[in-house]
């Protein structure tokens, strides 16, 4: 006891090798490691962030009598100049992102089998998907910006029948139009931008995981939990996209 009371001995620095995940003690109530628990709760909070954004957009859109038709706005296709393919590009983007998510699940499963090559292969495909998605998004953004869309100005105006017309075309055809809500651009760029930021972070995370997989770090550690945690994040990005897709492109 006397030794315990000596401040100096006790305050000595102890380097903890890793948190004592139920060291000698109680099971976690859920049999989920602390790392995955943390990721799950982070994602839960991020779901609240995205809902905040989406419902702000939703409330504003609901308070408007008219909103541009996404089938008209999102009809551009890379390499097909002047051809209108309603929802073409975004359908491709959705497919890419979902597939990329699937690839990462495959990597996680291979991780459970300690199959280093398999993890690397599927992770690589997943990263490719993420990059392709970002490429498409960059194209779509620059296309809209090229048309004159900004966060505070909307080039898509309402025609006499309530149809959606790009201002330049309406002027050429001398169709009388009333201005479209400027918040179209603001919410679109804001929310897809925030989602794109998440995708970019996810790609970086997956690249880190890929490098460490190739280095054999996880193999030596005896488990691929890091791939699993990053994977959770990656699926979440996919999950958010499903809703962005619904509320900006479909409805």
């Amino acid at each position, binding site marked *: 006891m006397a030794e315990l009371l000596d401040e100096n001995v006790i305050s000595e620095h102890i380097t903890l090798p890793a948190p004592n995940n139920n060291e000698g003690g109680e099971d976690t109530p859920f049999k989920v490691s602390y790392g995955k628990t943390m990721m799950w709760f982070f994602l839960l909070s991020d779901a*609240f962030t995205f809902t905040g954004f989406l419902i702000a957009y939703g409330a504003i859109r609901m308070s408007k009598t008219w909103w541009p038709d996404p089938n008209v706005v999102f009809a551009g296709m890379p390499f097909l100049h002047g051809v209108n393919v309603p929802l073409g590009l975004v359908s491709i983007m959705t497919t890419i992102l979902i597939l990329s998510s699937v690839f990462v699940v495959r990597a996680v499963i291979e991780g459970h089998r300690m199959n280093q090559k398999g993890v690397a292969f599927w992770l690589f495909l997943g990263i490719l998907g993420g990059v392709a998605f970002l490429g498409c998004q960059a194209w779509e953004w620059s296309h809209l910006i090229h048309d004159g869309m900004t966060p505070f100005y909307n080039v898509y105006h309402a025609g006499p029948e309530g149809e959606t017309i790009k201002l330049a075309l309406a002027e050429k055809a001398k169709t009388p139009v009333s201005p479209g809500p400027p918040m179209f651009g603001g919410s679109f760029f804001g929310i897809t931008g925030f989602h794109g930021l998440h995708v970019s972070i996810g790609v970086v995370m997956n690249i880190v995981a890929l490098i460490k997989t190739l280095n054999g770090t996880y193999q030596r550690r005896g488990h691929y939990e890091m791939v699993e945690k990053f994977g959770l994040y990656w699926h979440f990005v996919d999950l958010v996209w499903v809703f962005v897709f619904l509320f900006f492109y479909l409805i």
Partner: protein
Amino acid sequence: MSSHLDDATYHKQVAAIWRATIIIAVVTVFEVGLALSHYFFFYHHPKAIINVFMVLATLMKAFYIIAEFMHLKYEYRSFIIILTLPLIFLVWLIIALSVEGTFWLRLIQ
């Protein structure tokens, strides 16, 4: 963690993932089809009913992403509950702001 997968579970898991993928793909095609059919064929009809179906379809996709891809379906029930129950707060936020949004529309009309 070190309990590595045996082959049978492995094949079962892989099969489950591809099944989920196919379901999500089909639902997405269905959604895009609904949206486009409204655009091409029923342009001057209200979109509300189609919107309801698309929302339901998206919720279904979300379910498969969370349950299969994120593997939540296979966690403990209590874990599932603790993660999904807070979503009722979001539901209430969405309801309240939707009521407000439509109310603002009524105010200007």
